[in-house]
Each structure stands twice: as structure tokens, then as C-alpha cells.
């Protein structure tokens, strides 16, 4: 064969030799990349976090506690928790229902539906707030009706709750849909064949399988509900002690040049963000293990 005869000519001139292990980079490249990555993360993520706590404690622990115990701060905390307590359960129910329908069934428009559920993620928070002002505000569609019945949504608590619901709308659903799609319906079908009803299947078969993913979605949903700023800012009217959530309270304090109080309250939010990250990391590991178990058992079956 022609192409074999000239091997020796070719290989006698030895090629430039590459690194001794071709599957990773030379040590100096690896070290540079790691240093660059760490510096970038430290500069962009760690430093802002550190600065929050630093500024918060600048005037001592007493001033810090003072800022948090202030009645307006407490009422902001209360309102934030109320909004989250309403938005999260509703979005949870919706998320499970949507994931059941989309994850377990094949119907026309399923992909469109999935995309529509993601919509609130891509809409600017300010626009999200605006749409509710246009609906329920004084000059909005329902404005006259609401005024007639002496109901207030915009610049009142209901508006804050609705805006929070909107921006946190997709979290649980988008976590559960892919999870349930990959899981498949074999176990549910088995339960059905053994005579279980719909609710029994859900509580006894589906829920135990998706519980970590569900908690994951709820965690993210809660974090966003507590921290949402833009949308809530547009609908709240910033009435101190009345329609202020924690992030809005931070803004007001900051704009009044009460910086250390602003950071003191902000540190509560930063703390909740850290807790969120910890829970998230924990749940991700649990979900990974579950997925490994499932794919593992499927491979055995083949």
C-alpha cells in the first residue's frame, strides 16, 4: 500500500514534541488560569459581599442592632415575609401542576407552554411592575372599578404581593419540568397498575422522587421573593412603614445618606443570600445523587 511505504520517511524526522501529558495543560498554564479565575471571583463576588458586612458594622454593633430594630425596618421585614408567604405557596402549586402536565404528557403546544412559563424571567423587573400599574393603577383598566369599590392594589400591599408573584412565577415549574421529564412515568404507571388513584400516585410515588428538586425550586423562589426590587419598587409607592419591603427600605435609607443603616438592613438580605447558597449547594448534591441512582438503575435494565 502506498501510504504505508513512506512512514519511515515521515517519522524519521521527529515532530516537535508536545507536553508530556496531552490531556491537561502544562502546570504554569493551569496555575495562571486558576489564579485568574480566583481573582475574578474574589473581585466581583467576594469583595461586594465583604463590603456589605464591613459597612454594616462600621459604627459598631449597637448602631447595627439599632438600625434593624427600628419600627420601619421591622414593618418592612414583616411585609416582605407576607409577600413571600403568599407568592411561594401559590407558585409551588402552579409549578407542580405545570410540571405534571408538561413533564408527563405529550400534547400540542407543549414547547410553547414551557416557553411562556419562562417569560417572567426575560421581562425586565421594571416592566413587570409597570404592567400591573397599567392594569390596576388610577388610569388603568380596572382603575375606575377599584376606585368605585374603594379598593387599592397599586401603592398598597396587594400590588406588592402580585408583583412578587409575577417575578417568582417560573421558579418551581422550570426546576421540576426537566426533572420529571428525565425521570419518566414508569413508576407512576406501575402504581396505577397496582390500583393507586391519582392523588395516591402523587403523594406516594411522585413526590418522594421529586422532593429535592421541589425544595430547590422553592428555595430559589423564596430568595427571589425576598429580594425582588425593581418590580416591587414600581408598584409600592414607597410609603414608609406601610408599603416598604426590605430591599425598598435599604434604598430609602441609602438615598437619605443613612449609609450604615442601609448596609445593616442589607446585611440581613446578604445573610439570607448566603443561606440560600448553602441550601442550594446541599440540594444540588441530593438531586445529583437521585439522578445518578435513576440513570444507574435504567442502565442495568438495558
Amino acid at each position, binding site marked *: *500500500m*502506498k*501510504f*504505508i511505504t*513512506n*512512514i519511515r520517511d*515521515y*517519522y524519521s*524526522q*521527529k*515532530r*516537535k*514534541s*508536545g*507536553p*508530556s*501529558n*496531552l*490531556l491537561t495543560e502544562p502546570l504554569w498554564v493551569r496555575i495562571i488560569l486558576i489564579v485568574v479565575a480566583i481573582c475574578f471571583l474574589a473581585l466581583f463576588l467576594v469583595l461586594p459581599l465583604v463590603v456589605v458586612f464591613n459597612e454594616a458594622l462600621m459604627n459598631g454593633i449597637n448602631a447595627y442592632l439599632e438600625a434593624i430594630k427600628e419600627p420601619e425596618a421591622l414593618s418592612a421585614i414583616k411585609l416582605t415575609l407576607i409577600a413571600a408567604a403568599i407568592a411561594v405557596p401559590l407558585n409551588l402549586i402552579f409549578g407542580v401542576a405545570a410540571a405534571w402536565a408538561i413533564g408527563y404528557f405529550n400534547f400540542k403546544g407543549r414547547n410553547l407552554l414551557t416557553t411562556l412559563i419562562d417569560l417572567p424571567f426575560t421581562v425586565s423587573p421594571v416592566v413587570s411592575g409597570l404592567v400591573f400599574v397599567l392594569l390596576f393603577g388610577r388610569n388603568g383598566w380596572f382603575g375606575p372599578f377599584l376606585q368605585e369599590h374603594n379598593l387599592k392594589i397599586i401603592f398598597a400591599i396587594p400590588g406588592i404581593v402580585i408583583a412578587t408573584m409575577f417575578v417568582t412565577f417560573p421558579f418551581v415549574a422550570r426546576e421540576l419540568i426537566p426533572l420529571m421529564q428525565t425521570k419518566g412515568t414508569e413508576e407512576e404507571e406501575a402504581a396505577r397498575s397496582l390500583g393507586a388513584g391519582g392523588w395516591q400516585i402523587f403523594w406516594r410515588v411522585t413526590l418522594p422522587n421529586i422532593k429535592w428538586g421541589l425544595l430547590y425550586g422553592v428555595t430559589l423562589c423564596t430568595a427571589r421573593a425576598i429580594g425582588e426590587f425593581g418590580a416591587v419598587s414600581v408598584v409600592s409607592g414607597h410609603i414608609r412603614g406601610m408599603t416598604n419591603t426590605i430591599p425598598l427600605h435599604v434604598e430609602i435609607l441609602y438615598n437619605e445618606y443613612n449609609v450604615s443603616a442601609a448596609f445593616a438592613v442589607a446585611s440581613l438580605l446578604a445573610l439570607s443570600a448566603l443561606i440560600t447558597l448553602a441550601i442550594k449547594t446541599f440540594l444540588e448534591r441530593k438531586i445529583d445523587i437521585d439522578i445518578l441512582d435513576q440513570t444507574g438503575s435504567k442502565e442495568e435494565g438495558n
Partner: protein
Amino acid sequence: MKIELQNINKTFGSFKALNDISLTIESGELVALLGPSGSGKTTLLRIMAGLDFPDSGSGHIMFDGVDVNTQPLSSRGVGFVFQHYALFKHMTVFDNIAFGLNVRSKEDRPSKNDIKDKVTELLHLIHLEDLANRLPHQLSGGQRQRVALARALAVEPHVLLLDEPFGALDAKVRLELRRWLRRLHDEIGITSVFVTHDQTEALDLSSRIAVINNGRLEQIGTPEEIFHKPKTEFVLNFLGEVNFFRGVVGKGKIRIGNLKLEAPEYKDQPEEAAHIFIRPHQVEIITDPKGKNQMAATITRMHAAGSFVRLELKTETDDDLYVDLTPERFEELNLANITNVYVTPKNVLVFIVGKHII
């Protein structure tokens, strides 16, 4: 090119993947590395290729007498065919095959036309001229495998290494490709080593077989030697079905229960416990007892298994015994209505306990 491996050791953490393996592969040979999964055969192949390295300080890898241990894989002149082909998904068949030529430094790189000629020649060789512009995911498994082979051959290696080359293919394609690969090897005569866990593949394709188990080389030899003169119980067991008996060997005799076989090669040895193996097709069955060299047995089950008839027996020593008979012999013996028979092994393999067994 001749490949010599001397005292190769490889440890992953605390797991000893390869244990002091020495092996010589002559120029132009087609050698199979045969063993169960996890035996270390793929690791050995990867070490030959330069994709893995032996434990530092252990062993030598020589290509035509030159130690290549410190040479990176790109300069070893090795063509490697991966188990799942590892084709570049975003490149056409043509670009995949041309890759090894395109990445050469400017001085060494053939002209565009030469590359085109070369790739066309290889496409012809693998019978895929018409699919040059397809992407890998548009090909069948067998076609991908051939592209992977052409890609490895494009750089004109002196050694071709194949990791489970037919593992991911269905049975029919596997058989076709096996024949094609053997013809290809006969044509181009390149020194080739392939890894497999399928003994029929190894027996069918290779000029020699190296059987590997638990990181050790159990035996290397021609397919005949490996099949008929296995050196260890593992090799014997791994290459086809076998019946196992406990017995005694020595003083010129092999004893299994009451059965006594002449064994002049053990004449000068005292009697010792031994493991005795009999292949299913090497058992004679008779219906009347004659002489002493027989063992009584009861037929528990029989069924036609393709080109032979399989009998399942219980011997007088209460061991299970499988026997394969040709359909003619089965007819001749008229076994359909008989349950009690007598068996004589035509050929036995003996391993004295504690001596040959590792």
C-alpha cells in the same frame, strides 16, 4: 514495528491496575488483549499509545528497540481507535480523516491537494467515498467505526491500537467489520493490537492472544495454544465453557471418584489433590458399561442447541456435567428414551491444587 513491554506496573490510588506485565509483539502481528472488564487490558493499550503512563520508575516501552516511555503520544507514531470512536462531532467525515494532517506544523504539512488525495484514498479503503461530507451523527455505528479507523491511518502510524473496536456494534455488523479488519491488516501489514472481552473475536481475528486478568498477564500464545493448552485455570475458564471436577493426580493416574484415567506424564509424582476440567464436546457417552474407565451418570435435561445437542447430566460423584453431542451421534445412541448412561472424557486438563493456581 516491534513493541516490547517490560515490567509495566500501573496503580490508580490503591488499586493495582497492571502488575508487572512483560510482553513482546512482533512487527506485523495482530495481537488481541483479551480479558474481562476491569482486567487492565485497556489501561495496557493506553500505556502503549502514550495516553496513560506506567508508574514512575517502573518498566520500559520499546518501539523497535527505542525506549518511548518519555515520548508524548503525538510523536510515537501510534494510531488509536477509540471504543466509542471519539469522532469530532462538528467536522465532516472528510475533515475528521484530514485532521491529523491538518494539525501538522507548516513545514511538515502536506499541500491541500495531497491531503485531499490521501483522504480520498482512505475513503475508498473504507468504502465511504460518497459520505465524505456527512457529519458523524448522520452515520451508522459501523460507518463511524470505519471513519475512526481511517482517521487513525491517515497519519501513517507504524502501530495501530484499537480499544474494543467492535464493542458498540450489533452482532451482524460486528462480524462483517471483523472480516474487513482482518483483510485490511493482511493488506497493509501494520502492527496492530486490539482490546476485546469477546473470546470468539480474539480467536477469530488475532495471530496471538494475550489473556489478562486482574492486571496480570495470564498467558500469551497463538489461538490454538490458548484454547488447547491453557496455562492457568482462568484462561481455561475464560475461553469457552468447561466442566469442573475435584480429583486426585499422581502415580501415573488421574482419579475422579471411581473413574481412573491413564496419565503417564504424572508417573513419578505422588498423589495430590487436583482440579480437573473437561470441555463439553470432549466427552464420550455410551449406554453399556465397558471396562473401568467410565463414570455412571443420569441425564437430567437435554435440548437441541443449534448445531449440537446439549445434555445436562448428574454424575455418580454428584457433580453437574454438560456434554455436547453432534445430532448424528445423539441419534445413533438413541438417547431419547434412556436416562442412565456412562461417560468417558476424551481429553482432560489438570491443575494441581496449590501449584499452578494463582
